């Protein structure tokens, strides 16, 4: 019977579809190009993005500086290319950290009822605070650095991961293959990791891409407000924030970082949408 084909079998047959899905392809290409740009930044005709040249302040595009220079005489092009590094690093770190912590908490809360009652109330509390405000509050408690920004962006994302993982655990733990594993004496940690965790992979892949995109956006937002990365680190948010003041005289200052930011987030979201469509259309509801 076709309807009884197991989910993993269906996923296997869909693997080619998931690679040929148009939005996965376009999104993947966009992200790949930004990632390559970040990796190969020194080879792309850039100079030191932090070198200050007071004599070159606010110069228009030229042979030396393709997109001109900013208020401190730094090369806009080089800063935008290097900015990809901080954005992508922060996106990846935040997604990885939120998934790691969220999965651990989600597995435990989904499986043990008494933990569930307590932990989920904490998660509800965290979710009630707007991500942006929570991140600003967390950053302003400490000195701005990459690490604090990552932590500040990770904490608001954790409840989303916990809820998703918990919902999967709640359904899977009632499956009779879990009961069968219990009745052959499999220990609880093994049941969680071996029998329940794999069911969360597909929805987590999708959620991970969204977290990555939102982390990049919020980091840019924090930097724009001046509560993000310290100004000496080139980041798209910093550049847009500084360029904003001179927008009427030199719009080119915000053009390049904004374009990169938009393309990166678009790429990640396209990838996430494509993955969701091909892996499991029902995930959208759970989130």
């Amino acid at each position, binding site marked *: 019977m076709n309807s009884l084909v*197991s989910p993993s*079998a269906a996923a296997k047959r869909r693997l080619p579809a998931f690679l040929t899905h148009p939005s996965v392809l376009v999104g993947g290409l966009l992200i790949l190009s930004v990632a390559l740009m970040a990796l190969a930044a020194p080879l792309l005709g850039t100079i030191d993005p932090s070198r200050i040249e007071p004599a070159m302040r606010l110069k228009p595009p030229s042979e030396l500086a393709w997109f001109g220079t900013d208020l401190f005489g730094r090369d806009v092009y080089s800063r935008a290319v290097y900015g990809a590094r901080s954005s992508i690093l922060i996106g990846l770190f935040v997604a990885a950290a939120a998934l790691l912590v969220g999965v651990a908490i989600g597995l435990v809360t989904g499986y043990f009822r008494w933990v569930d009652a307590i932990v989920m109330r904490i998660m509800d509390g965290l979710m009630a605070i707007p991500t942006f405000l929570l991140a600003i509050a967390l950053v302003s408690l400490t000195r701005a650095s990459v690490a604090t920004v990552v932590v500040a962006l990770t904490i608001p994302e954790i409840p989303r991961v916990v809820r998703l993982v918990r919902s999967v655990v709640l359904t899977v733990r009632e499956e*009779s*293959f879990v009961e069968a594993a219990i009745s*052959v*004496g499999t220990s609880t940690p093994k049941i969680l990791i071996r029998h329940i965790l794999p069911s969360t992979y597909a929805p987590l892949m999708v959620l991970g891409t969204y977290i990555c995109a939102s982390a990049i956006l919020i980091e840019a937002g924090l930097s724009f407000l001046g509560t993000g990365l310290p100004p000496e680190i080139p980041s798209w948010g910093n550049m847009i924030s500084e360029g904003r003041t001179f927008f009427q005289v030199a719009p080119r200052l915000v053009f390049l970082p904004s374009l990169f930011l938009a393309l990166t987030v678009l790429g990640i979201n396209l990838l996430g949408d494509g993955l969701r469509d091909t892996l499991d259309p029902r995930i959208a509801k759970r989130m």
Partner: protein
Amino acid sequence: MLMNNPPVIEVENLAIALPGDGDRGFAVDHISLSVAAGEIVCVVGESGSGKSVTAQSIMGLLPKVFPKPEGRILFEGRDITKATPAEMRDLRGRGIGMIFQEPMTALNPVHAVGKQIDEVLRTHLKLSRSDRFARVIDAMKEVRLPDPERMYHAFPHQLSGGQRQRVLIAAALILGPKLLIADEPTTALDVTTQAQILKQIRDLQRERGMGVLFITHDIGVVREIADRVVVMKGGKVMEQGLAAKVLDAPETDYTRMLIAAVPTLEPKRKNHVVTGDVAITVEGLAKTYHSGGLFRDKRTVHALQGASLTVRRGETLGIIGESGSGKSTLARCITELIEPSSGKVTLAAGKDGRAFRQRLQMVFQDPYRSLNPRRTVGQSIVEGPMNFGQGKAEATERAKELMQLVGLEPHAIDRFPHQFSGGQRQRISIARALAMEPDILVADEAVSALDVSVQAQVLRLIDDIQKRFDLAILFITHDLRVAAQICDRLIVMHRGEVVEEGTVASVFAAPAHPYTRELLASIPGRADEMVPA
């Protein structure tokens, strides 16, 4: 007399191609059948025989994955394969009514059941609100729903399974269709409810003189209800004719096999003497659930009350009951999957101090869900022994032996569950249980999800391994025919309590409790069989 009536529906040379790369070219392979007014035609076949697809194509409800069917479907002489969607919509309800297998999912959970019957009237007729109400109440009375005025406002979850199916029958029949298509309408119901619903369909069909196309996998149900029978296999009609002829003098081997595979009520183990030691003793096991809490009323449900039993090695104890009787709760308490509220389970003193989980194993109901779809069957089989310290190589070697023992290829341990059929998966579940070398096996509805022919094979396998390993078996089932095949003794459960206990032969011949009598009387197709004294 029946054959002289004009046909309500005639299916001529109907062929529906299977989409994609299926195991055969056609879901329905050039079949012809007809239903006359005033007769019940049963289409019988195992899963995948194409019987449901046939019904769907008559209703014009074929899933979109199928291409347009070839052949003709004549409703009162008019070819409905050429009807427009609007004509078909009118025909459904007015001309053809349909009832489905799962009454819970066929009803909308957020609307009162009366409104759902009313919807048929609103769609097809222009009547005043009070006229419609009166007709709905009449229809509900006709299917003998109790207190129809009140039940009109009830929601599906407040009704029992049998009542829900009655609501669907009322909705299907309210416009007086000439043909009723019933697709496994009693499969999801308990046997006593099934008997009532079958009688009801029969009565209504006689009163109204309508034709009924009844789809089922259960030969017992066919015996109860059919005037004529169509046997299908692999999309083809194997045989059709009057019920008495097809059932008592079948022409094809397949029909003979199908009929022979239905277990008889003759207790197979009448002369089986159990001499083994007591393997497991259960005393006063009870399970009480409390719901509600801080902001809600507290409710207490006694799922299981004071169940006691013993099973000896080499003996099979059947636990019989309908859904909600507490038999699965009993099994789960015994296997320590849930903690009982009181009572205790004692295993006989083990010779080598092996753990509880090694000595007592379980085979689950649904072979599609009891194996982890992401792990190879080999991984599933060796998991238990490796939990208790067996080396991987040794456990894998043993898994191969067990695969052979349950009738599968040893090298198939590297495959995934979805590559096996339901019966094969149940064999794998048995192999997994045997890998622990248990003394006691608990089989919870282990053959209920299987086709009868496969069921017979798996029962033989369980019988065989019991002899070979001297197992004590607790066999939980709702099916008394299956119980007669494999059990030495029975306990009958009703509303969480054990109401009767005894050997299979004595329970069948002289049931003491009224509920047991009702259960026995409800077995479909029983009239044609002698229950041995």
